[in-house]
């Protein structure tokens, strides 16, 4: 039984997904230190990094599975668990903290009915903390997927969430 079959998940049975993963590995494969660019692109494509996919990457890049898994779990932008369709990252670093980040956290928790670190039952939103996003000129700020929202007040939150369809 291959590594892929042992680690059961949808990918083991999704030939299309596997083909995409293989294509990405093929594209970056010759590059020294290809692992992180490969993981970035795979996650952009399939939204998270399931174990079966990590096993495939390890096999194709000829790396120990432990190394691939270790890298995937070290970096905060990578996730081995499926997250919401919209990942909301709230900056909790000092410049946002003193400009009222806690009020934004409270507003988000109230609007979504979940706490920080959780995912909405319909799988649409994940809520998590982030370190400094580098937009302190418009603190307090959040990121929803790749979009940054700044100069926030609690009143702005419902409208921002509405835009996420």
């Amino acid at each position, binding site marked *: 039984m291959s590594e892929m079959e042992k680690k059961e998940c949808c990918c083991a049975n999704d030939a299309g997904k596997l083909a995409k993963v293989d294509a990405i590995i093929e594209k970056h494969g010759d590059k*020294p*230190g*290809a*692992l*992180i*660019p490969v*993981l*970035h692109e795979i996650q952009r494509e399939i939204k998270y990094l399931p174990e079966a996919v990590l096993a495939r990457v390890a096999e194709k890049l000829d*790396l120990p599975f432990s*190394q691939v898994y*270790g*890298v995937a779990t*070290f*970096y*905060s*932008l*990578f996730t081995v668990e499926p997250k919401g369709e919209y990942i909301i990252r709230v900056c*909790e*670093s*000092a*410049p946002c*903290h*003193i*400009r009222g980040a806690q009020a934004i956290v409270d507003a988000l928790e109230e609007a979504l009915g979940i706490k920080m670190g959780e995912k909405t039952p319909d799988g649409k939103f994940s809520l998590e*903390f*982030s*370190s*400094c*996003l*580098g*937009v*302190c*000129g*418009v*603190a307090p*700020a959040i*990121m929803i997927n*790749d979009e*940054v*929202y*700044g*100069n926030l007040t609690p009143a702005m939150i419902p409208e921002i969430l509405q835009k996420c369809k």
Partner: protein
Amino acid sequence: MEFYRSHVLVCAGTNCVLNGSKVIEKALSEELVKRGLTKEVKIVETGCFGICDHGPSMIIYPEGVLYCRLKVEDIPEIVEQHLLKGRIVERLLYREPLEPKPVQTYSEVDYYKKQQRIVLRNCGIINPEVIEEYIARGGYEALGKALTQMTAQDVIEEMKKSKLRGRGGAGFPTGLKWDFTRKASGEQKYVVCNADEGEPGTFKDRLILEGDPHSIIEAMAIAGYAVGADKGFVYIRGEYTLSIERLKQAIRQAHNLGFLGEDIFGSGFAFDIEVREGAGAYVCGEETALLESIEGNRGEPRFKPPYPTNEGLWGKPTLINNVETLANVPSIIQKGGDWFKAIGTERCAGTKVFTLTGDVNNKGLIEVPMGITLREVIYDIGGGIPGGKGFKMAQTGGTSGGCIPAELLDLPMDYDTLAEAGTALGSGALLIMDDTKCIVDITKCFMKFFKHESCGKCTPCREGTLRLYEIMDKISQGKGTREDLALLETLSKTMQIAALCGLGQAAPNPVMTTLRFFRAEYEQHIDAKICPTGVCPMGKE
């Protein structure tokens, strides 16, 4: 070639874009079409102007009039009054925070008067997506000069003469680092630009890369020539999507015009640059952790020595420089090391880009000569504290820097003076706090950051950052004791000596400096069980 009678520069730095500058630009574009002005007035989308708090903004040339806090509804009036009738729209002009009188032109604004923009020379002036604009302002001339008129050793001597020191935080002499790399043995060498800007409160590298990406490309090529490297990497934070996009585009453009690739300027020198994205780890701003990350590993720092200049990327000699450090290089090669050395202080030459955040009227990006005082930065340039509140504390150098009380506001800011005062210039992040903020609360916030970002490799940091946070949390809950203060100090000193890398060594800085200058506030939380500003939960949660 087209000539325009008027140029409208629209700030499209990330902060203004968040405030709606793209919408403003679109409205302007549509209004110009409507009024038949598209052949007379040109819109230029530039990098950050620096006055992030006052965006969206635009500057109209040839007058240099600065309009701020724009809304879509303002556009027809600007076009009608200013562009058609030549009358300035006073209500939209920039206003100094402490004076009601508006200021007309960009060069009269206090915020800009004290600045000397070398690193930011093109930000807010050129369209960063058009290489011809970079070239028109002298871009790639320094690379041409280096490759055709100077030897590699000449370039290094000029960098040493300039006395430029690293702008990422450590302040190591740049020329010396280049020299070490050049002298290291080995055929294959690398140049790495550290664009993993993660220090809270710092966003200068983001805006330099967004506003003037070619300056980094040119600098890296010059560095490659000087040290004998043919390949460069820019390691950039994964969250900085616009910077990544602009940089990749700029690399393609540079290739197309022969500024990268084989036989640049017919000199025989070849250089290429690859972008590598980080994946969300503050520790990867530490140079050896960064190298580990490029190699495809967890971002865990290495033991030093050996230093990257001898054994870096894949064991080869590697020059690593910060974005801001590199952005100074073309000017130094163009104008000479002596010119640069004459700016700033005796021990710290040149300018520094500071990012002003927190409780200050003009949050944003400024570039001033080294040696300026914090008081001048906060009050003359920053416009003072909002709401007329009092100044309580400034944290310099980001979360890993130290905290300065009012008594030290007149300290000249450079690497050495601040280090001697027990704090750090670091990345140039300046977080200003007014008197409604709590020292214990903010220090707890700083410790939470380090607890999260510790890579876990060494015990002093892995355990120490956790315990520092737990003790701060305990104090903020009204459960702290005098023994806890003693433990904070012992733990901090231990981490400063024993941690493997700069993260663990610097993590205790906020604790040490706030205990030194604000001990009484800690003691109130502990002895009287009160938080004087009312911020801490003190057991109420």
